């Protein structure tokens, strides 16, 4: 097996897989960022918004969470490919659209999926902040924006971290599903390499190792984040 891997590497597939890793990271980080934005917005609406708007958010999280991720990506891709082409024609952006459409669909899909799980993660985090603290802040005359910046946001991130960590790991692995749209991320690079070299086991082992490295590396980032947001949180 080691010899096979070496010969696959000599053909240059190592670089292709590394470029695929960069693409996987790009899609999952941007997708996760979108997901966190959706999560915080959705959680705020659900805790403080009007009844109809929180119903809308619940609809979104229920629907997206009960449909398989792969199906969401298919629906987004096949549902938007025509619309995206029309938009590109209208704005004369065909070139940019051809190049960036797969990445956009990927980021949007990962964002929508991560967002649906994040809404509940951040809602839980907001609820975990003791109401007494808000009352105390009001009592000493903090303005709403001060309460938000000093009391709510720092603690929300702290409480949300373990859940967000799970969402991130899922998002990272969901990127393997977007190879359909023509994006060469780790999984697609491995599939193409497996076909070209006829050595599927070697390519998929290497892909697995890359996912593992990225996964373990990002765990380290979460540990650092927990330390950062956890400073001053005694008893945790």
């Amino acid at each position: 097996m080691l010899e096979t891997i070496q010969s696959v590497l000599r053909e240059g597939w190592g670089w292709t897989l590394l470029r695929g890793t960069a693409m996987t990271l790009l899609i999952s980080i941007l997708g996760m960022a979108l997901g966190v934005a959706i999560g915080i917005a959705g959680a705020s609406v659900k805790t403080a918004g009007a009844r109809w708007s929180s119903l809308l958010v619940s609809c979104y999280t229920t629907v997206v969470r009960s449909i398989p991720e792969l199906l969401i990506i298919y629906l987004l891709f096949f549902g938007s490919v025509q619309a995206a082409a029309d938009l590109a024609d209208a704005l004369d952006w065909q070139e940019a659209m051809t190049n960036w459409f797969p990445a956009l669909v990927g980021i949007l899909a990962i964002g929508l999926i991560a967002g649906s799980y994040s809404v509940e993660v951040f809602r839980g985090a907001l609820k975990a902040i003791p109401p007494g603290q808000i009352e105390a802040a009001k009592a000493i005359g903090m303005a709403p924006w001060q309460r938000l910046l000093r009391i709510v946001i720092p603690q929300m991130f702290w409480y949300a971290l373990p859940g967000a960590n799970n969402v991130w790991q899922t998002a990272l692995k969901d990127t393997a599903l977007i190879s359909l749209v023509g994006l060469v991320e780790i999984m697609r690079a491995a599939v193409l390499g497996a076909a070209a070299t006829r050595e599927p086991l070697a390519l998929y082992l290497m892909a697995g190792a890359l996912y593992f490295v990225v996964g373990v590396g990002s765990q380290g980032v979460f540990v650092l984040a927990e330390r950062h947001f956890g400073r001053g949180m005694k008893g945790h």
Partner: protein
Amino acid sequence: MITPIIKKAALCAGLALLGLNIASADTLKIGTEGGYPPWSMVDAAGKVSGFDADVGNALCKELNADCRFVVQAFDSLIPSLDANRFDLIISGMSVTPERSKRISFSIPYAVEDAIFVLPKDSALVSAASADAIFQGLAGKTVGVQGGTTHGDYLRKSAPGLKVKNYDTLDQMQIDLDAGRLDATFADLTSQSKFLKKVGDKHFALSKLVIKGSSAPEVLGYGIGVGINKEKTELKQKVDAALCKLIDDGTIKASSEKWFDIDISNYEVCKK
């Protein structure tokens, strides 16, 4: 989930009315699968090679256009062509009535026969008719690549077989190698590539070749270039260029380079 798409579609449809459809003038974007050697594969640098790439490049030269290949999963090629993500599909795609409902095809410039790979000691290797093979394999499991015409053919002509679909030829061939399949059914060209790789110790090609012309309504009329239905002018140009490439031996040369046999369709241009 559904609402954003509809909203977006409505918005985009509105915007589209403001603009015009401007076809890219001298670049031809060609959709291809990239994971189906020796038809279409991508090397580590992302360069597309194989029979499809040769046909594409020769075609672009004939049409005085620059070629750009877009590599995408086979299943996504037709919807993407519909949406003008590229101008042509060149991906070893068989012309079938089913596909012709959605897109139009050039002339079938190549015809490919299909063949079984069987255990070497099987009596079916030397079977003389398709029916003999189907009866011999009754109740057994035969692997095909999903979404291809081969699976449709077996399901229709040999209902006694268990047909198992695979995403890629690799997965199918690994299962055959591991004894999880009794036979595989695919293009002559990819089957002989597989035998070349594993050697002829355990497996053999069936003597019998299933000709596409024996069941064109299922197996297809040959390999064609997929073209958006609205682009009739492009189709005429492509047809003329393909006939020229068949006549001057360009298709023959690259077919022999990749498959060791000539799969050019000489009949189609004589009509």
